[in-house]
């Protein structure tokens, strides 16, 4: 079943087509939601919410945009909504002083893990801007629109976030360099 057929059938509530769409796109949706959430349990809730929103809105999807783009936007909106809702209820302290596992490896997997870990440790507001800009490729104008802030604010927050991220990654990188030096 091609994507267009799958979408058409899913619009009619076809269980197989809906599951097929989920299988195709759940890694993408989960990735963006997980990175914005910074937490596995929250990510699961937000991802489910994102999918429910997707299937609620699906009958109105007319194909003006690519399905993946449309879906991604809903997932981001859903996660941002989840964060706003959560922020209203929980005043969250950033665990910047948490101990970091510096035993990284030199391969890409280790770098990704380090980045993911560092992203998770960023304060929520900073994380969402880094994720939206540097991971998901949104422009500052788009981020400003999504978050209801000025594009300039998004930009300045991004630079702060990157600086913070660099600070979080630094010990890990040093450990990698030291490990490499030991191997040589």
């Amino acid at each position: 079943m091609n994507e267009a057929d799958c979408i058409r059938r899913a619009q009619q509530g076809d269980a197989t087509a809906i599951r097929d769409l989920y299988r195709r796109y759940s890694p993408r949706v989960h990735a963006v939601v997980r990175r914005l959430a910074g937490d596995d349990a929250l990510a699961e809730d937000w991802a489910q919410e994102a999918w429910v929103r997707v299937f609620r809105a699906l009958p109105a999807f007319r194909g003006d945009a690519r399905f993946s783009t449309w879906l991604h936007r809903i997932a981001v909106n859903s996660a941002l909504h989840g964060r706003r809702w959560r922020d209203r209820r929980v005043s969250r302290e950033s665990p910047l002083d948490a101990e970091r596992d510096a035993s990284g490896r030199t391969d890409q997997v280790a770098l990704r893990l380090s980045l993911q870990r560092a992203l998770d440790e960023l304060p929520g507001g900073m994380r969402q801007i880094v994720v939206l800009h540097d991971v998901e490729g949104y422009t500052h104008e788009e981020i400003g629109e999504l978050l209801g802030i000025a594009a300039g604010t998004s930009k300045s927050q991004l630079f702060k976030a990157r600086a913070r991220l660099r600070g979080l990654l630094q010990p890990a990188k040093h450990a990698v360099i030291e490990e490499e030096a030991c191997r040589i």
Partner: protein
Amino acid sequence: MSHLNLETIARLVEDEPDTIEAAHLSSCAECRAQLEAMTEDVHALGLLPDMAAAPDQWEALERRLVHEGLIRRRTHGFGMTARMMQIAAALLLFVGGAWAGRMTAQEPTQPLASTDPAPAETPQVPGTTDVPTAVAADDHVPPQSIDPRSESIDPRSDSVDPRSDSVDPRPAGSVEHAPRERFAPPRRDVTLASNETSAFPQPRTMEEAARLVRATEAMYLEALTGMAEMASNTDAGDPVVRLAALQSILMTTQAALNETPTDPIINGYHLTALAQRDATLRQVAQATGGQWY
């Protein structure tokens, strides 16, 4: 020498340095290294892969989608969803109403209430026990059970009754399914004549209200049946086509009843369609000389 701060370096990942920043970078290896590292970070962030969702996430999502009616998990007979059945039932109501309206307009001289000599006493709904409730699609409700009137108590004379025994296609010995001899206003404790609506009982309890609904529903059903039978003499429409349509509606409402057997609305639709089908069957039988049951 003071270094560039990390926020400035973060900006320089994308923006061009001004002359002072460029001069510093050219002379400071540490800041160049920081800029290089941050550029790598940003590049790596853009390459972060997708992430697999938890294996049990689909099950949880599916339950919620089913709960919200966003996913068709089961199909019923004829591939119809519950929503489609609701639509079909609504259609039935609409079509039935339109048809009844048309019939009423065709026979303005025979308003049911005006020819109805049924007693106008205050209804006593709680005592009513002969009201049909949900029935299966194939049930032919024995006329005696739904219409217990006898010849002796039928208040109408043959001259008023549009049908006569001579048009009954059934053999004389056929008593197993006693014919619904003629349409008569229901022997009910509840009367719905327009000039008596002010005396319509006000139920005091939920149970009483439910009984009243069932009683009026049965009255409506019988009235429609009678109207259909009276209309059979004048209706120019093809009864076979109507029969097929009614049969289809019955299958739909039956499927809906299988899912929600106690739903009073669907029961009402089902009973109405059942009565309409039986009336149409009689009409077809009269035309062909066969038996309707």
